[in-house]
């Protein structure tokens, strides 16, 4: 039983770290530029498709990731400097409408270029399980995801906390007028921040592709979770995004598996199998509601 729990904990960690990659970019865009970007999930999809396409062409997973990151980051920055920039000054509702339109365009556009889905499998070298502890085998690929997630989380932390650019971003997140007054080239900063966010989405997209399937519309469901994460963690805070993502990842995984196992004990089978995912969602949203009730600014608010 405890082996199952450990396995689920690792799954939760893995999912949480990938969620973090999306949430980090989203919280920065929302925190620094005060923009609701519903199309953030679409960047995740674009990254997955570019990656899958490159892997299909070259057979190299590594090339796929690198290509996806570069391609999505470039695409994101182009999008930001052309279209999204004109939305910063607009109200949230207009941003919702515009980025919703963007989802439609990107979804169908991807469909036109690549079709409804692309195959993507984990590199053959990582196909087998790894024995972590006696009795506990865990898929090598998922371990790599966890590793990559941790490395990226650490790098992001160093970037935000230790570098000058990171300081500017943090200043921008907590007080935009102040940052502008201090002569920071806001426009370029925003573009770079957006590009980094897009790159992170691409990594998550390619890494999760073999597990969740690369298909049009894959961004919408995970986008909502990313928003939940940044609300729980505190808008504008990377640390909050990490903590929030890990919490959500664990709650989601446990909800689906452990809770479902429990329910199977007590409920008729056809109700139990569907109850799991529903419970996981209810648990996540309920958790968010509870956090909002106690600490409305989130766990680590960046803004004063």
């Amino acid at each position: 039983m405890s082996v199952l729990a450990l396995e689920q904990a690792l799954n939760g960690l893995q999912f949480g770290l990938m969620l973090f990659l999306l949430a980090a970019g989203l919280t920065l865009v929302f925190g620094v530029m005060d923009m609701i970007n519903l199309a953030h999930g679409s960047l995740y999809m674009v990254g997955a498709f570019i990656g899958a396409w490159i892997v299909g062409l070259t057979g190299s997973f590594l090339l796929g990731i690198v290509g996806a990151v570069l391609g999505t980051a470039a695409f994101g920055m182009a999008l930001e400097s052309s279209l999204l920039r004109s939305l910063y000054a607009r109200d949230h509702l207009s941003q919702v409408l515009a980025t919703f339109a963007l989802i439609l365009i990107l979804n169908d556009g991807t469909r036109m270029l690549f079709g409804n889905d692309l195959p993507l499998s984990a590199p053959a070298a990582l196909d087998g399980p790894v024995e972590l502890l006696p009795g506990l085998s865990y898929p090598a690929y998922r371990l790599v995801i966890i590793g990559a997630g941790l490395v990226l989380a650490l790098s992001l932390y160093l970037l935000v906390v230790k570098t000058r650019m990171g300081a500017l971003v943090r200043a921008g997140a907590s007080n935009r007028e102040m940052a502008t007054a201090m002569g920071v080239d806001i426009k370029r900063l925003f573009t770079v921040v957006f590009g980094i966010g897009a790159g992170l989405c691409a990594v998550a997209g390619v890494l999760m592709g073999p597990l969740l399937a690369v298909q049009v519309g894959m961004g919408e469901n995970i986008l909502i979770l990313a928003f939940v994460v940044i609300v729980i963690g505190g808008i504008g805070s990377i640390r909050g995004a990490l903590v929030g993502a890990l919490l959500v990842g664990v709650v989601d995984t446990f909800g689906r598996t452990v809770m479902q196992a429990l329910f199977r004990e007590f409920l008729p089978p056809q109700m139990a199998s569907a109850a799991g995912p529903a419970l996981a969602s209810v648990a996540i949203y309920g958790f968010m509601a509870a956090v909002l009730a106690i600490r409305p600014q989130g766990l680590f608010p960046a803004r004063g």
Partner: protein
Amino acid sequence: MSPLRRRVALLALAGLLLALPPAMQALGAGYYVSTAGKIVVFAIAATSLNLVLGYGGMVSFGHAAFFGLGAYATGVLVSEGVFNAGMHLLATVALTAFAALVIGAISLRTRGVYFIMITLAFGQMLFYVANSIKGYGGDEGLNIRARSLLGFGLDLKDAPTFYYVALAVLAATLLGLNAFVGSRFGRAIVAIRDDDLRAEALGFATYRMRLAVFVAAGAIAGIAGALSVNQQGYVSPNLLHWTQSGTLMVMVILGGVASLWGGVLGATVLVVLQEALSAYTTHWEFWTGWVLLAVVLFARHGLAGWLAGLAVKKR
């Protein structure tokens, strides 16, 4: 527009709307009557969202959940053998008003983006619940063979009949909204939207007033949902998904936030766009997206604002 001109315009519009089914059938385009019915249903839902979002200033991202709940309330009753339309109406309003009361009571304690998120969350919770009720279709949805029985020999399976019934509900909704906007309560709600702290400091019971509007809007959306299941003969959890809430929001913003006809305009344009484009290409989503983008960038107050601007320019 002078009052006389407005009255004439409304009469002309009413005439056109009433003549639509026979006209379409005469042209051999009877199919479009059911499209018109679909537009009317969405117009009601979008108008209810405009009440809460446009006039009330509450950006609810879970409004589709009330639409879906209404559809389920009626759909489940029909599949259980209860056909009376009065029962359907009662159950729909009771369920959606209650849900809106609970969700609103909790959500309205938050503000800004947190309110958006928490309404989104509640909407998703209801979506997942609907998804998991295996007994009523679960994620595959539920087919409804019969319809609400209105009496008077009215058969809702008949497209023109449905259209007229839905039109009547829309008219009632618009009349109600108009009366509300001109009333003291309506003015207070707009003031609360402008600055709720100020309104509260003046002595308005802002929380209670907003909650009342939220519940009313939810109930109206529920009625739209009940109509929808009568038209489609089908109810699915997708009706409650956040993307549906997003679509409703798009209709409101497109048509014009806080304008009486905003919901109607937005629903009409979006559905017509979808239908027209999908006749030519499977990629209607792509082109719809561009149209929406254009509206955001170039028509800041939605279509209602753009039209009003045109009317002014004509002078």
